[in-house]
């Protein structure tokens, strides 16, 4: 009915699965603000293990939502909806604050985790206020900048390259570490490695899954790692599920 109303009334529309996704996004969008106010979002942390130092390198903060529609909706679904309706700014601010609060608590208890990584979506990199917001949060929680890492996706960079370049430079000025996520899945233009002041490359899971069984995938991963070393970047492999 909403689809017909949006397209000039006095009409009919056949149900399509796409409408279900639209409805879900509408429901989620309406629930976001109250969920944020009522503490329905929470963070989980996934460790990154340093293979050379045999220590915990850092951990990635991952948002989860105890959502009413439907139960525990995946971030893959609600993050794009949050980007569309603009609440991603408030949500990311909350994630940064919560991750920094947790990091401070770990510092105080002598926890071996020494750095926390937060995913930043593309629209935020269009905002000049991001570096200022991060600096304020770090100041509020008395955290040194090297204890925070920002993860950005390769596909996000392609879309807003020039603008993001500026924001990344601002972030580097305050010594924030930047990680390029999902490397290899987009166009993987080598010019990004030269122009962006990033510190780390994260190789996408799709490459890592094939590294044990496929010579081609192994060769690709080897090439990415060698390339990263030439640019003095460290490399994280994500989606590691096998001992071999």
């Amino acid at each position, binding site marked *: 009915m909403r689809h017909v109303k949006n397209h000039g009334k006095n009409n009919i529309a056949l149900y399509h699965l796409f409408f279900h996704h639209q409805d879900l996004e509408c429901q989620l969008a309406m629930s976001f603000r109250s969920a944020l106010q009522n503490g329905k979002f*929470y*963070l*989980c*942390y*996934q*460790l*990154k*293990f*340093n*293979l*050379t130092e*045999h*220590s*915990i*390198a850092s*951990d*990635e903060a*991952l948002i*989860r939502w105890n959502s009413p529609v439907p139960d525990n909706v995946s971030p893959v679904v609600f993050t794009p909806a949050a980007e569309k309706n603009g609440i991603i700014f408030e949500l990311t601010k909350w994630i940064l604050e919560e991750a920094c609060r*947790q990091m401070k*608590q*770990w510092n105080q*208890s002598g*926890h*071996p*985790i020494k750095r926390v990584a937060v995913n930043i979506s593309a629209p935020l990199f269009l905002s000049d206020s991001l570096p200022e917001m991060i600096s304020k949060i770090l100041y509020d929680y008395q955290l040194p900048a090297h204890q925070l890492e920002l993860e950005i996706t390769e596909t996000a960079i392609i879309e807003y390259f020039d603008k993001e370049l500026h924001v990344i430079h601002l972030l580097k000025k305050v010594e924030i570490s930047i990680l390029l996520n999902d490397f290899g899945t987009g166009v993987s233009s080598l010019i990004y490695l030269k122009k962006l002041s990033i510190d780390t490359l*994260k*190789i996408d*899971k799709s490459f*890592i899954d094939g*590294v*044990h069984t496929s010579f081609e995938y*192994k060769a690709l*991963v*080897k090439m990415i*790692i*060698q390339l990263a*070393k030439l640019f003095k970047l*460290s*490399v*994280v*492999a*994500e*989606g*590691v*599920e*096998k*001992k*071999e």
Partner: protein
Amino acid sequence: MSVLKKLGCDSVQGYLISRPEYPDVLNTLYTQKNMDHNKKPQNLIRVLRFLFKTEEL
């Protein structure tokens, strides 16, 4: 994981090391070694045993 190390990878992330965990779980693992063994995430325990060279966890 060993293949990735040979290829020169610096760090790894994934279910072999640890699933996404509540901060309380990570806190408890480091601070209270007397936690009920069955409640601990097994992947993480393996890493922690390796890190701290102990079987106590």
